[in-house]
């Protein structure tokens, strides 16, 4: 292999690895706080990318109707008990976030000229549509069984994943989409031409990782999430609401997922079901970190990125096989290093 090709592969690996790192961090976070293995993470990637593509095509994204539908469901689930308990104020709050917001967004989308908006505004709108589905999903799917065994939560995750993939097909059709790059600039580094999109991805990922770090270290909500991750009961006794922690976590996960989708849409064609394979690579990375360590997960993501990039050069047909079988030696290594008798719930 010639040196420039190797450099190009490394660069490709870093680009993808940065995305996997973001997803892996979100997966570790969700698991730590809620014990949910968040399989539907990948659907947020696809929804984010394809919603942006629809906006750029000048169509009101069909995902908006899912947001409205979920909003109605949450309003019913949370509003009825609030009303029964004689707390109309709470009902207003619930309806504000879950009905007024989606409908307001719908109104906004129907008046602005979607196609001619600046790219960043389109991205913001795509995120505004997709990200709130995270907390809504937590409320409807996970909160009723928040204390169930991990296994049940996992099966529910898989069910939610399948539902979202099916809906993805309904919303976006079977056609794949690719969005225009955020930057057409090319950085010339001698033997290596670094496209602007790569720089954007790496920069955004790094910024987000730093921002998350700051959030967890410096803010009260971040600390509340860390406390919940360390000791659920203890955090609850200190007045941290588990459902708030869950919704906040899912908000972050949905945000990371949708943003990853927006970032990769210019470098790969995204189909309604692409997200799963991408998120699964984030999973391999998270498992390298034992679903518990953020730095190890991020390192794992870079490793997965490189492995994928080089195996697509040497044995492109077996790229996925190679990446997913990586999990076997990782599990072996984890298995040899772990010594514990498990008492499951």
């Amino acid at each position, binding site marked *: 292999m010639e040196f420039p090709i190797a450099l190009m592969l490394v660069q490709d690996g870093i680009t993808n690895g940065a995305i996997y790192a973001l997803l892996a961090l979100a997966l570790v976070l969700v698991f730590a706080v809620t014990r949910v*293995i968040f399989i539907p993470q990948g659907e947020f990637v696809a929804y984010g990318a394809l919603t942006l593509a629809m906006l750029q095509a000048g169509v009101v994204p069909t995902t908006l109707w899912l947001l409205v539908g979920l909003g109605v469901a949450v309003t019913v689930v949370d509003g009825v008990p609030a009303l029964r308990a004689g707390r109309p104020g709470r009902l207003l709050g619930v309806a504000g976030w879950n009905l007024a917001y989606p409908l307001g967004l719908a109104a906004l989308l129907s008046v602005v000229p979607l196609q001619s908006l600046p790219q960043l505004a389109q991205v913001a709108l795509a995120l505004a549509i997709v990200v709130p589905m995270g907390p809504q999903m937590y409320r409807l*799917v996970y909160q*009723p*069984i928040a204390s*169930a*065994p*991990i*296994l*049940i939560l*996992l*099966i*529910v995750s*898989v*069910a*939610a*994943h*399948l*539902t*979202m*993939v*099916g*809906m993805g*097909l*309904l919303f976006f*059709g*079977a056609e794949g989409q690719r969005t225009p790059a955020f930057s057409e600039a090319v950085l010339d580094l001698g033997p290596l031409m670094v496209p602007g999109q790569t720089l954007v991805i790496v920069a955004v990922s790094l910024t987000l990782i730093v921002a998350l770090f700051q959030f967890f270290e410096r803010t009260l909500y971040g600390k509340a999430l860390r406390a919940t991750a360390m000791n659920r009961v203890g955090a609850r006794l200190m007045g941290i609401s588990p459902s708030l922690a869950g919704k906040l976590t899912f908000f972050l996960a949905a945000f990371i997922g949708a943003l990853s989708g927006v970032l990769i849409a210019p470098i790969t064609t995204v189909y309604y079901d692409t997200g799963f*394979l991408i998120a*699964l690579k984030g*999973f*391999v990375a998270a*498992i390298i970190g034992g*679903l518990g360590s953020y730095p190890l997960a991020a390192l794992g993501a870079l490793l997965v990125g490189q492995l994928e990039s080089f195996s697509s050069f040497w044995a492109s*047909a*077996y790229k*996925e*096989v190679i990446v*997913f*079988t990586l*999990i*076997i030696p990782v*599990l*072996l290594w*984890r*298995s040899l290093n*772990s010594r*514990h*008798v*498990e*008492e*499951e*719930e």
Partner: protein
Amino acid sequence: MNAKLSPRLVLGAFLALLAAAPLFLSPFSVTLLNYIGLYAMVSLGLVLLTGVGGLTSFGQAAFVGLGAYTTATLTTMTSLPGWLAWIGASPWLTLLAGLLLTAVVALLLGSLTLRLSGHFLPLGTMAWGISLYFLFGTSESLGGHSGLTGIPPISLFGIVLDTGEKIFYLIWAFLLAAVLTTQNLLDSREGRAIRALKGGIVMAEAMGVNTSRSRMVIFLIAALHACASGWLYAHMQRFVNPTPFGLNIGIEYLFMAVIGGAGHVWGALVGAGVITLLKQWLQDILPKLLGQAGNFEVIVFGLMMILVLQRARGGLWPLLRRLVPVRVDNKHIEESAEALPRRTPPKAGELILEARKVTRKFGGLVANNNMSLEVKAGEILALIGPNGAGKSTMFNQLSGVDTPTSGEVLFMGQPVAGKDSRDIARMGMSRTFQHVKLLPTMSVLENVAIGAHLRGDKGVLSSAWRLDRAEEARLLKEAARQIERVGLGEFMHAEAGSLALGQQRILEIARALCADPCLLLLDEPAAGLRHKEKQALGDLLRKLRGEGLATLIVEHDMDFVMNLVDRVVVMEFGQKIAEGLPDEIQKDPAVLEAYLGGVE
């Protein structure tokens, strides 16, 4: 008499209907039934794995694929090397080859993931399922995405099973054999060990069950069922391609198990039936309704699954059972069964358990400091002390759950440190738990029978084919004897979870006795007991002492302890502050000070 139907009658009626089905059903319906049978076989494995064992796999479709592709490759390839070619001569040989290959893969995957927390197995199987799917699709020699054609039909006793109606009987014979053997397995010594996996691992290990082995066993069985289903599928379809072995189908199998009723063998059949028929119907109706083509049934399945897990985690089978009033017979206890052999009891006064200068530090905290004690055959020793004195830590050192920082614990002259719970149980130490650990949905009888696990040796295969009945009768008789002995006879067949807390503690003692121990470790046995129950417990322990058993009790109830035990060891701040006869202890100034505070 009971107005409910006998289980045999219901099963018989079901079998008769099934046997007659091809005679009056359309070929299309028979094909559907064939698929239901094939799917039920896979989801049966998942019932065992997920519903009973609390593990799960999303990669079962890949095992089905392994079975299908093994036979497809071996029976259709013309260019096989000589040492392999002979296997392709008969589908029955390729079935064996497939099962063997599956077993190897499952053992490998299992040994990698089963030692880790429960969620690594599903994640591992997910990745492996995807890898295998891509491998089937990209490998030229396996036909790529277009697959392999020209697979021969199976022949049995000279009959070529080349139509749906003919292979129907083979598929359902396989399924019924799988259901019945699974049912048999669950109702056995090994089965109790498997059923203890979900929620009772620490307890089961203390009773001598090798729980890692039990996990591996059910993972292996589930994989083999899937493989056999794949073999049948390949010879029914006569061609294979990768599509039916993808991850989505793997997930669908799990849905079948969960929706049908993940804890019940027949739930697999119900789930496979419901999902297959529903899928058929939804695939017809949804594209028309939504105006486009696609796999929209997954939306419905996914939502259904979420609702089932939120609202009715037991699935459909328990609901269905309520509709058909089938009688549930209590387990029969064979009075004439031969008693189990007993270990040679130690002589009275022989030293059984000895702690020598045991110190256990947790960082800077010294939980046990220089603790020594002895328990002899035929005596009851009480370990008492105020809260936080280090009794539980000491109990953990004695029972081998924890290892002392220094000093040693000798049981029957052998060091306990470094041995796992199973070995210690085998040596004759049996224990109860401070926080009761039993399997609430199993009957009292079965819970107690777990205690006798090490006194039987019949394995999985003999259990599945009912070759274990003589031993099983002896185990159950022993369990029943111990239950009668502790005075829980009237609750023999009740669910253990329905007992009051005090009775559950007594149940734990019966379970411990079932192991035929020479040392009994009781962690607060009298907590939650009423006065009469305490008296009965005291009488029982005295009787056991008379039989030469050594007993160590950690207890708070002074009345109970002082009237019962031979000697008392008192702990405070991790140290022994007094040791002696109950009367002496009651007058000991150090003890009085520890319990009542000093006199200023």
